[in-house]
């Protein structure tokens, strides 16, 4: 286990060190201490390494991650795992706004709650939230899966494209063009796999599935009031 003290090392050297790890590095386990809510921690990583952040993080922790597994032993600030390509980001606490924004791949697990705009514009990432999520989550979500074990706030899935949304609890309101859809066996299978990978004990059968009605895909003046 390599330990980096952020206070002593500084952000630039910390990120440069983690970014320099290659696919065959034998230094696969890293720990960051004294994170103290710093921004842009462990961003742009591209190696199968395991990074544990002790404490809470500021904005954009794990941004554009590829391959790495990043665990936050605390809560995460806005834009955690934004534009993630692959790998895994796990947050033991809560996540602020725009968690997993525009993510293209990989798995984001939030053990606590996620704030508004979770999964905004997601493009293939899988997000599993053990608690609740805030308003406007999955806004303009393009693809990937968002799993919410608790409740969802207002305007879930507004202007949704092809992302799949699974919610176990209540949905305060659905956004424009987002509808409840039939949960078919293949969806239960996807959900079971995601819950397994996230290490969350929940029954897929307890969830409802939401998706795009696809009515706003091509502009129709009769739908103008939906915008």
């Amino acid at each position, binding site marked *: 286990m390599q330990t980096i003290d952020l206070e002593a090392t500084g952000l630039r050297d910390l990120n440069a060190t983690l970014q320099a790890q290659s696919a065959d590095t034998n230094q696969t386990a890293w720990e960051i201490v004294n994170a103290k809510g710093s*921004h842009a921690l462990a*961003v742009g990583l591209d190696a199968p390494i395991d990074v544990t952040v002790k404490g809470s993080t500021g*904005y954009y922790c794990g941004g554009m991650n590829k391959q790495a597994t990043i665990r936050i032993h605390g809560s995460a600030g806005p834009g955690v795992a934004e534009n993630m390509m692959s790998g895994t980001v796990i947050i033991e606490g809560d996540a602020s706004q725009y968690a997993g924004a525009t993510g*293209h791949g990989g798995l984001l697990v939030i053990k606590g709650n996620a704030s508004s705009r979770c999964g905004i*514009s997601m493009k293939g990432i899988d997000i599993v939230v053990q608690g609740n999520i805030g308003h406007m989550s999955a806004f303009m979500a393009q*693809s990937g899966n968002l799993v919410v074990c608790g409740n969802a706030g207002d305007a879930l899935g507004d202007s949704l*494209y092809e992302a799949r949304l699974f919610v176990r609890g209540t949905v305060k309101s659905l956004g424009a063009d987002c509808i409840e859809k039939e949960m078919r066996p293949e969806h239960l299978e996807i959900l079971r796999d995601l819950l397994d990978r996230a290490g969350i004990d929940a029954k897929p059968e307890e969830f409802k599935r939401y998706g795009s009605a696809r009515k706003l895909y091509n502009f129709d003046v009769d739908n103008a009031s939906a915008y």
Partner: protein
Amino acid sequence: MKDKIDRKIPQTVPRQSWTFSNEINSEIRRAAATGIYDIRGGGAKRRVPHFDDLLFLGASISRYPLEGYREKCGTNVTLGTRFAQNPIELDIPVTIAGMSFGALSGPAKEALGRGASAAGTSTTTGDGGMTPEERGHSSKLVYQYLPSRYGMNPDDLRKADAIEVVVGQGAKPGGGGMLLGQKISDRVAQMRNLPKGIDQRSACRHPDWTGPDDLEIKILELREITGWKVPVYIKIGGTRPYYDTALAVKAGADVVVLDGMQGGTAATQDVFIEHVGLPILACIHGAVKALQDLGMHRKVQLIVSGGIRTGADVAKAMALGADAVAIGTAALIALGDNDPHWEEEYRKLGTTTGAYDDWHEGKDPAGITTQDPELMARFDPIEGGRRLKNYLKVLTLEAQTIARACGKNHLHNLEPEDLCAITMEAAAMARVPLAGTDWYPGKGGF
């Protein structure tokens, strides 16, 4: 009527309304028939005060000119000297503005790269990600970071020579992107992670930051991902240039790109293009003043775009304080957009040479703003690149001609003092004196 003629009463000529002109009436009829606003490409077509309303004074006894063709007049520019390890060095201060693959064909993007590289300048991606064609053919490529984040990934980000965070553009400040279904080919859809054939409306706000304080942190993240190597530009549409420039500097920009309402778009509502935003002439003074007030003029470079057509425009923008300019529409025309060669086909589309602006429909006879394989095949990227290089060279030669006449041995030495305005509006907007006076509106002592 017959009665009047019979009685030999003099007739007035039929009078068209200025308010309800044929042009306006045709738009009313179009709206009544379709129920949807008009969408088109390009920038503002209305007449606005522009660089044409400024003149250079030249030299005589009180100023000393340089010898044309003999005495050197430098044209190089370095962009991104504030924080980046590797600022961009360009031979000429004319860059190619961001235009997306999707809006433009792959060969058109290739031609922009070829022409710009041959002329020693940079090109810019657009809302659709980086294609191998443009990276491969652009010696200096600026990668746009847009609200949609279509195709955004850290590998391409690290291939970029600079990153341009797009907050707005002159054609539609406050508006998002639009690429209609007819241009969403398999390849465009795949790059954007969206189904084929659907209308794509990119968001107008970034998904993961709000306001200048957040933007500062976003830029920190982008610099950390790219190792502080490449410059970060911030592009803004011309709205409140003084404050927006100041906030861009505060957020950590290496370069501010300022785009006026004449700057083009691939597809936006006509009402937006024509009625929102400022002419570029009205933007430059405010942006330069903000940089000067912060002690950052020439430290944070300013790129100006929106209606740059000639070397005179280049020289005037630089005399007002810009470090470089960017061209978009002019570059497309150099490639062959709106060329009289295609007049017969323009007529079939209900338009004419120079007026063709339905770029969003993907039926461009010149094969530039389309994803249709047959139309694309009409466009030769090598020939297009050669034409763009020639045009960029002419812009530079023209700007040098003017600079030498003003006694300047580098384009950067042009200054507001070299200029006068021939209209009150231009004098007020650019804050250069009305010709023959030392006064501009707002300044005392007329």
